């Protein structure tokens, strides 16, 4: 057992982080939001960036080399999605990733693929070239997240079981990235913002909020990485629960650390929180995970 990133995994993580920093930095994030503030119009999906992700192997990461993919495994995919979660990369990333090798053009980023998920919600319906599942009669809603347009459908699709598991795991990876990022934002702000003549990070109440954020990140990280290695449904459920918690509570505490500034449209904090909320309702919700983990306790019982 050596439960640490390998050299190659570090390199992959740094590579994805570098790519995203260059192509989807904070200015791009804010630019993508311009005009999305009203939420009446669906924000544009950046096709150029989508293709670039495709050629970098983001969607074909787990496709065998013979099939034109990168031939890596779930742990690597989890690292890539964690990076996507860090920068709030928009788009139906998971659906397109899972469609690579199944839907033509998905692997290369030519096609944008979305899915009707178990909760009866579709992300990015307007931008999608291909919709998996039955989206007939989908009605738009005003999405809380300015960068994730949502539609509701009447008849939820139960979905492919493996896809549900992988969606849950990759969602957890995105949540982990978001949680780690809000921890950094909280700490940065706590170090620089001064009140009472000193950085607010010198006050215990603020310190303890920040420490709490980090603890949730680290516990979630261990759970998410382990689930990527074992692909055990109970491990995935645990990872999802803890990563959802780390992202949602982390973003809320980060907002608290930012004070009034945190409540503005200007600060990025709300974007992290809203995206975390959107992801948290994907298949493999809190109730499902808790029930699965409860049942697992009795699985081996006499």
């Amino acid at each position: 057992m050596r439960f640490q990133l390998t050299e190659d995994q570090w390199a992959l993580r740094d590579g994805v982080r570098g790519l995203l920093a260059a192509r989807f930095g904070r200015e791009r994030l804010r630019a993508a939001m311009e005009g999305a503030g009203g939420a009446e119009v669906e924000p544009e999906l950046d096709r150029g960036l989508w293709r670039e992700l495709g050629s970098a192997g983001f969607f074909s990461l787990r496709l065998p080399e013979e099939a034109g993919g990168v031939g890596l495994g779930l742990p690597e995919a989890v690292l890539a999605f964690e990076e996507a979660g860090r920068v709030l990369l928009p788009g139906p990333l998971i659906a397109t990733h899972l469609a690579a090798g199944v839907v033509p053009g998905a692997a290369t980023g030519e096609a944008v693929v979305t899915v009707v998920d178990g909760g009866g919600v579709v992300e990015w319906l307007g931008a999608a070239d291909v919709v998996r599942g039955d989206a007939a009669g989908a009605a738009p809603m005003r999405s809380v997240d300015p960068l994730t347009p949502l539609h509701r459908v009447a008849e939820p699709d139960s979905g492919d079981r493996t896809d549900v598991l992988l969606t849950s795991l990759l969602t957890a990876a995105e949540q982990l990235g978001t949680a780690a990022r809000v921890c950094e934002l909280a700490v940065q702000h706590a170090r620089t913002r001064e009140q009472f003549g000193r950085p607010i990070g010198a006050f215990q109440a603020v310190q303890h909020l920040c420490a709490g954020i980090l603890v949730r990140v680290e516990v979630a990280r261990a759970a998410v990485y382990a689930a990527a290695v074992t692909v055990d449904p109970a491990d995935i459920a645990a990872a999802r629960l803890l990563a959802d918690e780390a992202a949602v509570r982390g973003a809320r505490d980060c907002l608290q650390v930012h004070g009034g500034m945190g409540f503005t449209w200007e600060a990025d904090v709300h974007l992290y929180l809203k995206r975390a909320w959107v992801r948290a309702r994907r298949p493999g919700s809190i109730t499902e995970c808790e029930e699965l983990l409860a049942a697992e306790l009795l699985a081996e019982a006499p």
Partner: protein
Amino acid sequence: MDLSDTPQEAEFRARLREWLGKALPSLPAKPSPDDWPGRRAYDLGWQRTLYDAGYGDVHWGADPAVRMIYLEETEKAGAPYVGANFVGLLHAGPTVAAEGTDEQRAHWLPPMLRGEEVWCQGFSEPDAGSDLAALRTRAWRDGDDYVVSGAKIWTSHAEVADWCELLVRTDPHAPKHRGITWLAMPMDAPGITVRPLRTLAGSNEFAEVFLDEVRVPVANRVGEENDGWRVTMVTLSFERGTAFVGEVVACRRVLAELAVAARENGRWDDPVLRRRLGRLNAEFRALWRLTQWNVSEASEGVPGVGGSVFKLRYSHARQELYEAAAEVLGEGGAALDLEQPWVLDRLSSLSYTIAAGTSQIQHSIVAERVLGLPKGR
């Protein structure tokens, strides 16, 4: 990222499992929680059994991955807990191994491993708890001895200990972190009075220890004179970093037992309670993974401040576990009946957010030393 056993690890696991299958059934019955001499004998006996079978040194020195397997398998099999050997095996021993001289290692470690001697920890004082560096127990040189006077408190296992890892102030004029020295004090030295304190669980888990001109040989000093704070940090990093690791597996076992009990008494049909148990399953799974992560990261040597992250979450989760246990035992007052299993454990779980550094102190450590926030007040 690899969670599978190497061939050597798999072989170790299989051999250990087979041995546990044979060794556990022939263990004597567990003594009552109030019978300290009985508990001492039982805990030392188990350590001796481990030693004779070649597993005596598995807590330190051995490959950390092997230690994880040891903790996992012994807990799953329901083997005895380290108990009275907690301090010796889990933090005094590792400290002596890391910081002691060759003579000191040869003198103290083998009896610990053979299950012959029990250690206790004399760090806290009535006016030095969270602010440990404020300790006032004095020691001055007299020939080849230190002469020690003062008082320690909350000293677990003091009544049955042979040795005490003791912090003393050797330079009262130096800044408070600088004048401290780490000594190993024999508990049978003249001048030591142990007064048991009754815990909220009704037991005598810890004691006050009064020291009146106790002579401790200078040769028993680990590290340099006045450099004891650095050695203390090593001890505490073991205490927070690795000492509770095995208990995570134990909690997972308790949780599974709780689920079975809930199924039997019908409480399982309550979705709120059931989901709460499911959430705890996530918690302890993740804590075990975090442990594997930390152990792989440290790989050898002294664990880092990451131990505080683990300790914070684990101590909280353990308390939640026993709160859930009370829910399961539920109606009819079973949760209030000291004869019931889990009720004593529920009481003792209350100490986890206090002992080995309170949660508030751990939060501050994480904020300042891991996150680099400015030093607070």
